[in-house]
């Protein structure tokens, strides 16, 4: 009886202040103006929604790819012995602990028309006129990759740390080149970490709102932005449909990864 008494208050709290409100909101997608699936039917032919949905998916794919390419080498670097790796870990964690809003603001400062990057490029004589980066997709990609990189680096570093170092030594001793040992031993054994990182970054970027709103242009509207926009216009059934679509996409991707890699438990290891 006691375990239930200890856990029940939190479960009840979350049911009342989290699960039920979200479900009630989602229900409005089928209950208004009367019980109907017409709102979803309308969504499937809605070009605004399709464009926004595709933009969101494209952004998530690009950001995930960027994080993987930049994050894997950093994760390898974190395993080097000594102080350099420790300092590198602090450099990874400092931005991780800084709020998304502050980091987005920082990129507004850096990428603006008269921002640091443009001033530096002009001073160096690379360009004559400032580049337009802020309020374009490029700015969104750069800032989102920066914000989500730690979510890629930390699970990969975790997986790499669990690989027995003697396996690599054995491969080298048996005549493998360093590149071959990496490709045939380290890389395959680090795949659980890669899968967890890819899943985390992809799922988190699907819901992004603050960064694209501040750094993107009118064509960088994400599903989350469209939802907020529709709630402001009190178009609840449409906002509820969009929320259901976003949630369904997120759950489908998590289920897919669970089936392919069994990384459901990876979420338990996101310790900040």
């Amino acid at each position, binding site marked *: 009886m006691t375990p239930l008494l200890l856990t029940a208050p939190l479960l009840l709290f979350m049911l009342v202040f989290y699960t039920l409100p979200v479900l009630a909101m989602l229900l409005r997608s089928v209950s208004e103006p009367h019980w109907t699936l017409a709102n979803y039917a309308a969504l499937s032919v809605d070009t605004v929604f399709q464009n926004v949905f595709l933009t969101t998916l494209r952004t998530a794919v690009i950001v995930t790819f960027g994080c993987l390419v930049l994050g894997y080498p950093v994760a390898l670097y974190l395993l080097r012995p000594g102080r350099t790796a420790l300092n590198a870990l602090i450099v990874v964690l400092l931005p991780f602990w800084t709020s998304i809003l502050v980091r987005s603001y920082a990129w507004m400062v850096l990428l603006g028309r008269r921002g640091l990057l443009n001033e530096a490029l002009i001073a160096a004589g690379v360009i004559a006129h400032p580049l337009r980066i802020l309020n374009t997709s490029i700015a969104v990609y750069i800032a989102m990759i*920066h914000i989500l990189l730690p979510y890629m680096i930390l699970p990969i570093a975790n997986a790499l740390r669990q690989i027995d170092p003697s396996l690599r030594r054995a491969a080298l001793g048996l005549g493998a080149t360093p590149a071959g040992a990496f490709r045939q031993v380290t890389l395959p054994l680090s795949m659980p970490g890669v899968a967890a990182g890819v899943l985390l970054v992809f799922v988190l970027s699907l*819901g992004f709102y603050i960064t694209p709103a501040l750094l993107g242009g009118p064509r960088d509207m994400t599903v989350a932005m469209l939802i907020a926009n529709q709630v402001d216009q009190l178009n609840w059934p449409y906002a509820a449909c969009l929320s259901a679509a976003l949630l369904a996409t997120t759950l489908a991707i998590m289920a897919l990864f669970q089936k392919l890699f069994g990384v459901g438990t990876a979420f338990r290891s996101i310790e900040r």
Partner: protein
Amino acid sequence: MSPGDRLLRLFVPIILVVMIAPILVVILLSFSQASYLTFPPPALGLRWYRAYLGSRDWLSATRISIEVAVSTVVLSTILGTAATLGLGRLPKWARTLAIGLILSPLVMPVIVVAIGLYYAFARYGLVGTPAGLVLAHTCLAVPFVVTSVGTSLAGFDRRLEMAALSLGATPWGTFRQVTLPLIRPGILVGALFAFITSFDELIVSLFLSGANAVTLPRRMWEDLRYDIDPTIAAVSTLTIVVTVLPLLWARVGRRKAS
């Protein structure tokens, strides 16, 4: 040294510099004396910190953020710690279900939670009140408390509790004198994450803070959308100090302990 190793040593430092640079730039800018954003700052000074301290809006937003974050810490730490203690003793199916529910805010798009709560709370007059924000932030913060307490509980020998009980301690006495001291580091780290989760939270606050419970991130957001005043650099630096220093301290503490 292999060619791959050399590549690593060449490129990773560049990536690391780019990761840290934006934060350093904001901190440096906050000490600028210029009246607009320009880099490098022509002169250094505390002008924007004075502007922050002289603004009633910014200070009231700071006060609300701290009140909401502290209340969130209290509520989420108590609920989360109690729940974690019970979780390990639940039957497996119930545990899996409960953990799924408790951790789901980690991957749930926050916008969906935000508008769901906005819709529900509007009917009970909770929009525009700190209480509404505390209830919402607690749901978002609880996963960090449960994972953190859960981690410290995983290395905990349950036989110690049984020994205390068999030696005549009451269940509450056992908790206070045996369990609590051993899981205290996990609770403290969880409380820290809960504080930061609430203190930095923007999306839920955009919908729930209304006109009367404007938090610091919400105030920053409005400034960023309509005019960029370097006061934001000063506020950002202050929030970085408030969130990063305790985490750094906790991390170093944990390293020393292990």
